[in-house]
Structure formats: C-alpha cells, structure tokens
C-alpha cells in the first residue's frame, strides 16, 4: 500500500497525526513506507491538491475525501470525529476504516 502524509508545518498537530498513522499501520500489520511531504507554498498546495494539514493518502486516495469544491491552501484541516466533534486530527477509527477500504480495493495477489 502506498501511504503518503502531507503536512503544513504551522499546524501544530502534524507530528501527533503521523504518530497516530504509524500506530494504526503497525496495529494492522502493514509494513508500508510512509512518504512524508512537507507542503511549503501556496503553489505547492495547488499542485498537490492539498486541502489542509494533515492529509493522509492511501494509494492516492484521501482517507476522508474532501468536498469537490474544497480549495487548496496552506491551512490546517478540520476532521469530523465519530461523535460529531471537530478535530484537527483524523481519529484512529477514521484511519482504520480508510485502511480497510484501501485493502479491499487493492487487487488480490491470487
């Protein structure tokens, strides 16, 4: 599985989000190299279609697909938790569900 982690340094929780991602990958027994991308300019944000920090892509797919009209910018990203609260971080459950979906979508070896 290709795993990418995109972040904007001014958003203070990116280290915690990366740690959370790695913990869930470990828990699932997935030995993936996480490609960590620091987004440093508005131009880069446009180019990478970066809707905010942190953004996690599994095989190129966002773990919490943003609305189609989202704009790309150097900003912090809001995630809605299972209980409806807003958080600057994806919850472990959000990451787990996205990994499960990405695994199902991958072509099987056999």
């Amino acid at each position, binding site marked *: 599985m290709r795993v990418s982690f995109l972040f904007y340094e*001014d*958003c*203070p*929780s990116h280290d915690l989000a990366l740690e959370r991602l790695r913990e869930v990958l470990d828990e699932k027994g997935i030995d993936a190299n996480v490609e960590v991308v620091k987004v440093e300019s508005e131009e880069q944000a446009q180019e990478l279609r970066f809707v905010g920090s942190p953004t996690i892509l599994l095989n190129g797919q966002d773990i919490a697909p943003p609305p189609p009209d989202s704009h790309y*910018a150097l*900003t*912090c*990203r*809001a*995630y809605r*938790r299972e209980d409806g*609260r*807003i*958080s*600057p*971080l994806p919850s472990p459950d959000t990451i787990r569900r996205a990994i499960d979906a990405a695994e199902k979508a991958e072509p099987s070896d056999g």
Partner: protein
Amino acid sequence: MANLKPGDEAIAFELPGVDDQHHALADYADKEAVALIFTCNHCPYAQAWEDRIVQTQADYADRGVQVIAINANDPEKYPDDSFPRMKERAQEKGFNFPYLFDESQEVARVYRAERTPEVFLFGKDGTLLYHGTVDDNYEDPGAVQNHYLRDALDAALADEESPVAQTRPIGCTIKWR
C-alpha cells in the same frame, strides 16, 4: 511571542462586532475579568474549542466575566473568515459573547497574537493574568487535565494569582495580509 506578559496593561481597541455594534475594551471596564480570545471561523482548533468557550462564558457570566472574541484573519485568503461568515458562525454556534472583526489586523498586531485560538485574560484592574491556550486537550473535552482558562478565571475571581500564568497557544497561525 505575545507583546504582553503577565502584569502588563491591556491595550485599548474598538472594533465592529457581528451584532453591528462597535465594541471597545473600555466598555467592559466594570467586569471582574475579560477573556480576550483571538480566534476565527475556519481553523479546526478554533472550532474544536468554541463550544467550550461558549460554555465558559455561560458558566462565568453571572460572576462578572466577559469573553470577547476577535477574528483578525485575512478574508481574501480565507473566505470562511469574512465578516458575513462570522455573523453566520456566531448564530450557528450560539456565541454568547461579542465576536469582533479586526479587519486592519491592527489589534492582533499590537497584541502580537499569533494563533487561533489565543487567550489573553485581564483582571478587574486591566492587567494580564493569563496568556495562552484554553486547556490542554483540543480533541477531547472529557480528557482535559489542565483547564488553564477556567483555573485562571477562578483565581481572578478569588483575587488570587493564576496557578499558571502562561502557556503556549496551540492553533492555526493568524493569516496576515
């Protein structure tokens, strides 16, 4: 780094609010404490804490505490932080405190505020009692260990020193022009 340190005097300002009235810091001179909070609409940290700020105002209003929220973000870059969107947000979330627009960013600059949210708590004599974050857990209100703002308010109302006078504000950076 903020321009003020505990013990420093508040810096006067007057700004328009979402109620279409102008609000000056001096209007609240009779309050026991004023919590000036730089915040905004779009930032997830501001959103994560805003219910707690509303609750803090509700819990402390009858003890003479006034929360004043100020948004200084550039709405050209962040349209969700425009004045019309501030009005919508205040209504949606039931803000029970003035929500002011620092369009020129002058107030944020003189306070040297950096983040949203960032709290400056002033006592009855107008001196800074506490500066920093709201509490120590933006993700889960039930897991908060240190209620910095509430603890500082309790101390102010008891005429005691804040147990913690400064913490590092945690949130999005203010979006300068």
